[in-house]
């Protein structure tokens, strides 16, 4: 899902970089100390989990934990994700620096949508967590496909989507399991103390 430099039209990258910069300004202000701790360990998890690859549908995929990140951080996922993607680009060559804003925007959109689904409080919690984890992968994958099409690539780019749908199912199940686990061992992580500024 990380887009390298020179693949997508530079105009798209520039607009996305601007939007991400604005988003960082809006979501990175007045962060409470407790939020920083959660942001740091979610950011660390996002950075590190990209190294765990597995073969799927004829290619190599990795987990992202975007859904869980969105659930735990709400809008604060944007700065945490930006930092994780910046370090992935600098240290692991995952994604380009010029496209950093675009990559951040793609994935943050999925994570924020996951956060929205989680915070509707409608429906059973495991189902919301599963849906959040699923959408956090499918939406960015769709955006990547759309950006490739807008950059002049053929309709074959949509064939990139099926592997991501398979990953999204796995992420959804993992997110539901992680939420159930955290609810059991550390329920305060979902408490209003974090929701105060995160929502």
């Amino acid at each position, binding site marked *: 899902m990380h887009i*390298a430099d020179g*693949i997508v039209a530079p105009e798209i990258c520039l607009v996305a970089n601007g939007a991400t910069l604005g988003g960082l300004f809006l979501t990175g202000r007045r962060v*409470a100390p407790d939020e920083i701790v959660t942001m*740091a360990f979610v950011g*660390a998890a996002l950075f590190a989990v990209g*190294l765990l690859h597995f073969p799927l549908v004829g290619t190599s995929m990795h987990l992202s934990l975007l859904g869980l990140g969105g659930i735990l951080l709400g809008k604060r996922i944007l700065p945490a994700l930006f930092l994780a993607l910046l370090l992935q680009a600098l*240290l*692991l060559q995952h994604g380009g620096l010029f496209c950093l804003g675009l990559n951040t925007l793609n994935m943050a959109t999925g994570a924020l949508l996951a956060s929205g689904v989680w915070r509707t409080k409608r429906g059973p919690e495991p189902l919301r967590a599963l849906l959040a984890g699923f959408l956090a992968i499918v939406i960015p994958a769709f955006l990547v496909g759309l950006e490739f099409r807008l950059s002049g690539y053929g309709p074959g780019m949509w064939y990139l989507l099926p592997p991501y749908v398979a990953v999204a199912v796995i992420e959804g199940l993992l997110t539901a399991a992680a939420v159930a686990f955290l609810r059991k061992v*550390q329920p305060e992580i979902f408490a209003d103390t974090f929701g105060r500024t995160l929502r």
Partner: protein
Amino acid sequence: MELLRKEFTWVLLVLTLGVPGVRASLSALPPHGLVVRLWQEGRIVLVSVAYESGTPVAGAQVTATGPAGQEPYLVGVTDPAGLFAFVPDQPGVWRVVADDGRGHRRETTLDVQPPDLPSTASTPQAPAGEDSLLWPLVTGLALILALAGFAYGVSARRQVT
């Protein structure tokens, strides 16, 4: 002031030590990192692009730039075996960039010899395996920890004042 909560420290410890361990245990699976090899056979330079597991990367974009030029000499894609070949127009250090189109790229150089010399120059192999991933991982986690500590301090001081 409590700088780090206990569970935060544990999470970072597990990530720092656990991920490379799990990664090593999954070494049979194909990871993303690219390994690019260049070598010369007579007038031809051959390019091999594979993932660190050894799986060839078909359709990877290969960009070759000559010793003098800022502009690419040619751009092409690898075949199903992950191979690409081209004929350089001059000796010197050539730069080859391989990109799999999914966010992973690797730059490698080759000192191309004049074709009349019976030499086959091979570039140093791109670092592969667990060692190449461990240090970026540890560096990244350490940077996140350091930034979080700094931001925590600033935020806590702001709350006090």
